[in-house]
């Protein structure tokens, strides 16, 4: 089968008819996942600290160390969260946080070890900006840092902090954050030592179609070499209308974003109109068509809503991502409701698919749902 080229992808992204592109993506999805299974994972997003030195523009999550609402999560709280997760049938925790100036690699190693001692749980954690920060502070190579973390119990790495892998755009929205090359290097090194990772893309800020293609191409090329990405997760920041971004309580703001997409990374250009449903499906479908070597594509129900996530299943997606045990309160126009695991199962069925619970490596844990 012939791969589509960058140039073809750009034409598709810019001018293909949405339904035509959707059909292409739907066909690709069917080839990769012919049995109509749509997976999800039961896990919990734990943000261990909101203190961060990066201060990305538009990030609503970070605090200075001395801010009254700055926090570092205590062990007791952390353990309780993990216990609850396991009790709910969860198999994984996603640990992410800001770049805290006073936490060093020993802190993380200790953290990972105690968790692994106590709980039989998969630890998916530390996106590339965090890994790089740890490495820099400890004056270790990225590879060494990853090995240390891996030995201490870190199982896999989330693809957050990628935003758009184009330095032109990163300069604008997150100038202090690691660049494209380092992000890719963390992922490459992780894959080389046998750790699986995901990859995300956050679009709908100031990027153009070329930047999106550059991002997809970087992922595809690395995947050709390492085959370490399990899934790709594109999402768009939705200022006004994702129920989730409207929460006014400062603290909870970032926790409500897509877990894999590193909740804290929320650049937003004030003069921009948000990416719409049509834009989202277009990028999603193109991702399915372009990333022929990445097996799974996640629909972001947290940012798009359940109905859109259902539609996304016909535009290339085959996975519903996390059930978001903690952050599952969806607020909409004053109405708040919980999206339960059962709601997710029902939504998948109503869209005409077979729901199945999976782990991080996409092994099916439970399929008779």
């Amino acid at each position, binding site marked *: 089968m012939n791969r589509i080229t960058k140039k073809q992808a750009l034409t598709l992204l810019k001018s293909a008819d949405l339904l035509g592109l959707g059909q292409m993506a739907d066909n690709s999805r069917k080839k990769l996942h012919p049995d109509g299974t749509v997976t999800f994972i039961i896990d919990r997003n734990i943000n261990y600290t909101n203190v961060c030195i990066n201060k990305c523009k538009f990030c609503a999550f970070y605090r200075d160390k001395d801010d009254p609402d700055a926090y570092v999560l205590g062990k007791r709280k952390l353990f309780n969260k993990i216990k609850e997760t396991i009790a709910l049938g969860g198999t994984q925790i996603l640990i992410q946080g800001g770049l805290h100036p006073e936490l060093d690699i020993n802190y993380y190693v200790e953290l990972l070890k105690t968790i692994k001692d106590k709980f039989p749980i998969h630890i998916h954690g530390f996106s590339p900006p965090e890994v790089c920060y740890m490495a820099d502070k400890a004056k270790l190579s990225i590879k060494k840092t990853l090995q240390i973390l891996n030995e201490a119990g870190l199982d896999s790495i989330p693809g957050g902090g990628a935003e758009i892998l184009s330095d032109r755009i990163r300069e604008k929205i997150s100038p202090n954050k690691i660049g494209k090359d380092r992000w890719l290097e963390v992922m490459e090194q992780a894959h080389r030592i046998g750790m699986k990772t995901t990859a995300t893309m956050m679009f709908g800020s100031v990027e153009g179609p070329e930047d999106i293609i550059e991002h997809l191409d970087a992922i595809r090329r690395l995947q050709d070499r390492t085959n370490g990405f399990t899934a790709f997760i594109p999402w768009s920041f939705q200022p006004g209308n994702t129920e989730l971004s409207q929460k006014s309580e400062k603290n909870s703001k970032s926790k409500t974003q897509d877990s894999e997409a590193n909740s804290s990374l929320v650049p937003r250009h004030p003069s921009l109109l948000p990416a719409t*449903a049509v834009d989202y499906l277009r990028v999603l479908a193109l991702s399915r068509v372009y990333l022929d070597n990445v097996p799974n594509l996640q629909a972001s129900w947290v940012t798009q809503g359940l109905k859109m996530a259902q539609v996304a299943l016909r535009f290339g997606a085959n996975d519903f991502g996390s059930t978001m045990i903690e952050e599952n309160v969806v607020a*909409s126009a004053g109405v708040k409701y919980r999206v339960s695991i059962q709601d997710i199962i029902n939504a998948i069925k109503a869209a005409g698919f077979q729901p199945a619970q999976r782990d991080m490596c996409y092994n099916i844990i439970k399929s008779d749902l």
Partner: protein
Amino acid sequence: MSLKKIENKVLSEKRLTTEDALALFESEDIFTIGRLANIIAERKNGKNAYFIQNHHINPTNICVNRCKFCAFSRSRGDKGAYELSIREIIKKLRSQKTENRKQTPPQPPLSRGEVYPSPVTRHLSLPFREVHIVGGLHPDRRFDFYIEMLKRIRKALPHIHIKAFTAVEVDYFSKISGLPPSETLRELKNAGLDSMPGGGAEIFDSRVRNRICPEKVSGKKWLEVMEAAHKAGIKTNATMLYGHLESLKHRVEHMLKLRELQDRTGGFQAFIPLAFHPMNTKLSQKSEVRSQKSKPSTLNPCGYTSGIDDLKTIAISRLFLDNFQHIKAYWIMLGEKIAQLALKFGADDMDGTIIEEKITHSAGALSGNALTKAQLTNLIEKAGKVPVERDSFYRPVRY
């Protein structure tokens, strides 16, 4: 099943049968269905996607009917029951500020029936040009009250188009006034009623209807009232509430009845499929209803309908209702995301920059309360359509 035969019919502008519509509902090929629906939409309305600046008023939520799916209604004395006086209604309408738009001197009032020249170039002195009034069936208010309400709104806001009262309300008025529906409608029209919304149609099938809204007028009666309205020169819309206990066949039959009436009268302007909203309604509280899992998976009894089902229903209505000029994606019910996508699946109308909406939000609608004109325009343009602000009769409006 291949949709080839249906595709040929659509391309050669032949009418679809109920079997065709059912085959479409049963097909999983949403891409072909959407593409065909879009062809029809463009044949009828070009690339236009319409919206209107309107204001919703729900004068009361007290209702004698208490339909099972209705999260809005209350009985008298219930917590949250309310009723607005005519003064309060007018005050609400008047209190809306104009967006930064040039004020023009007041226009001479139009006499009833007179319409603005098309395209309408008048400036608005209020941020809306249509008021949409529907409410509960109030046990005490008399017919005179509604006549008075229309007259006073007409007097207070002479340029505002009054779209008011579903067929259910009109039938109720006819009961409380002792007048036949045609008389009732004439009186309403004389008092200032310009057109009617399409609510209360729900699903015509009598068995399903008896389960979801036993107190409500029958489907037959609803159609009779609409026919009388059309004969009295009152344009109306038509709706269908889906995603509760009905089967796909019931949906098709419902649309067939509308198509037949439209053949006779031509009085329907738009068809508006309404996705059932489960929150806070008696239907979703009833576990017996909830546990009905024997239905095909595209139907989602008493949960939210799937986004895929919403888009298919829009598209199939566009294909089947060949004598309807417009299909409306009512964003307040669908959510603005699905409503935007609906423009790719045959819809040509997004309804409006609704200023107040109580009914759907009582049932946990997923959308916000209002969209600004800039937001609506952006949604439409990103869907590859041309935003056209319209008046109540779908004439383009310019400033």
